[in-house]
């Protein structure tokens, strides 16, 4: 029983990480129908920027948090402005490939700036690990879960209650139609990129204390986050969170009860299964487009 609880805690912790990344994917997809495969790298940039600002320059935590998020937000905006906006024939696959190229580019830049070593930061609060039923839970995991919940609630509020949010949804549904109604489509897309980059950055910042930050942490995280987003249903915020948590828990249970070597395989096995059985994911809407 104690082991099961420990696996669950470990799973929920990694699950929250995947959930944050999945939220970034979902959010952008909601606004632009685009999958940004550089999302993992944005998370990595958020984490490494925090390392430089908090551990390196010794800025106070809130300031470092905000600055890191702002910086990565800027990177996301630049990505949209320079790489994606002016594509002559914006076929979805082409845009996705551009984001893949951007992810490789960002990884290279990170390698030059931060080197190939791993870096660590201390946790946000200094509490010792919590003992629950014989299993231990890190206080940082609670921070992560709390912040993820905050993000999801804010997103729901943004979409349902604010005009900008509704305008963004309108742009996603039909860009031309929204433009005809006076919604500045290009600005909406830019805003969507900014928000999803900010979410990626927040994800990076809050997971930095419990993972080893290095220039290549984004690759696997991005892929697993994408799996989580697909699992929960691309386009649904709660789906992203559920998909992430489910993925994390299943991974931990797989390691615990089957074999430790299967850890990464489990995530991708699940992805294959979902794409085969129910491509729209658990909470996703019925219609799924094929390129």
């Amino acid at each position, binding site marked *: 029983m104690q082991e099961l609880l*420990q696996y669950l805690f470990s799973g929920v912790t990694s699950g929250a990480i995947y959930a944050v990344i999945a939220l970034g994917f979902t959010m952008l997809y909601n606004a632009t129908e685009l999958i940004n495969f550089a999302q993992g790298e944005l998370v990595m940039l958020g984490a490494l920027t925090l390392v430089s600002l908090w551990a390196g320059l010794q800025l106070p935590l809130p300031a470092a948090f905000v600055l890191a998020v702002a910086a990565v937000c800027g990177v996301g905006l630049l990505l949209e402005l320079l790489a994606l906006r002016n594509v002559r024939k914006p076929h979805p696959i082409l845009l996705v490939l551009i984001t893949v190229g951007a992810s490789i580019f960002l990884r290279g830049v990170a390698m030059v700036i931060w080197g190939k070593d791993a870096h660590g930061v201390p946790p946000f609060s200094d509490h010792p690990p919590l003992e629950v039923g014989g299993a*231990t839970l890190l206080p940082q995991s609670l921070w992560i879960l709390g912040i993820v919940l905050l993000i999801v609630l804010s997103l729901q509020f943004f979409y349902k209650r604010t005009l900008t949010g509704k305008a963004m949804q309108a742009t996603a549904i039909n860009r031309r139609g929204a433009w005809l109604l006076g919604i500045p489509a290009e600005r909406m897309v830019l805003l969507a990129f900014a928000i999803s980059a900010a979410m990626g950055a927040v994800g990076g910042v809050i997971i930095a204390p419990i993972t080893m930050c290095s220039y*290549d942490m984004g690759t696997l995280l991005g892929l697993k986050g994408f799996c989580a987003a697909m699992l929960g249903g691309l386009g649904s915020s709660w789906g992203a969170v559920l998909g992430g948590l489910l993925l994390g828990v299943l991974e931990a249970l797989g390691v615990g009860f089957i074999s430790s070597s299967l850890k990464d395989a489990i995530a991708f096995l699940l992805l294959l299964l979902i794409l085969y059985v129910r491509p729209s994911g658990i909470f996703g809407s019925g219609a799924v487009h094929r390129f």
Partner: protein
Amino acid sequence: MRGMGRALMKMTMTGLLIAGLCIPAVAAEEAYKVGGIFSVTGPASFLGDPEKRSLEMVVDAINEAGGIDGRPVEAVIYDSEGDPGKARLAVGKLISKDRVLAVIGPSRTPTTLAVIPLAEQGQVPLVSCAAGIQITQPVKPWVFKTAQSDVLAVAAIYDYMKKHGVKKVGILTVSNAFGESGKEQLVSQASSFGIEVVQEESFGAKDTDMTPQLTKIRKAEPDAVICWGTNPGPAVVAKNMKQMSMDIPLYQSHGVASPKFVELAGEAAEGIRLPTGKILVAEQLPEDDPQRAVLLDYIKNYEARTSMTVSGFGGYAYDAMHLLAKAMEGSGGDRQKIRDALEAIQGHVGVSGVFNFSPEEHNGLGPEAFVMVEIRDGKWKLLTD
């Protein structure tokens, strides 16, 4: 008349040009070229970077002392980035384009295994700085290594454990060549020390959470945990164990014998025991230890030259170059002679240990190459009992 003058000018200019091209070639014949291939950047840069600097330091020292048989030594060093494919390409270049007399490196076991066929086919002495036992067992005529084997590391740990009454261990190994080699040794040597391996788990090199594996290990109730890997995985394991309040001792491999591990693991590093070359505790060695003088000298020169703390890994390249220099004396640049001379070296006191080569033994180190240390206050403390 004029035409003849022009033709004469042309011939003279061509002659001078050819002569001019020959001069650098003649000058290049003078230097002995030694190749180096290290993982200077990449995940194993903690190995390759000190190794490269140590090699350069030794080459400069040799040249300042007049070179080998009066000829200067030139080191041609490439970066494998820890990648076996790139290592192969670089070694191919060293052998065919740069025509080096011998190759020092690579830094890692997977990269070494990838380049061994090139050394054997090209008949070029290869002195590797990697730990894997398969590099020199079975013996290959052209392949040597200066790094202590994981066989000796495991034996050092188990020997210490036996003296301190540890009967059951849980092992946690990284899933790459280094970890697999360690696991093989840990499992096969356990019974000869009266130790039982009660749980075997593995983790990926880039994993950031090992609590599920540690939970399984804890369930099997071992007396100690042995983790076998290189940074950053073992640091995560140390942190996880502290987080889970597992108070049984944690032993690590010599792969974490560097300041980086202490930096990554932070407080969790306290009390961890591991085998390491004597270099990390050189000042704590007894006065009559034959390696003490060599070690202190290396440490002093390395730190003065690079302003960086020394690590055991740079010593592998240091030893390799000194051994090669000994073998190259009187060889006149003949690779076969160098190889034969290398194989005959006995009693060479190096940084990694005392080397005794023979046709059956191309690593040349014995159990005294490792000592057990414990991390206290972020520093390495020699365990003498």
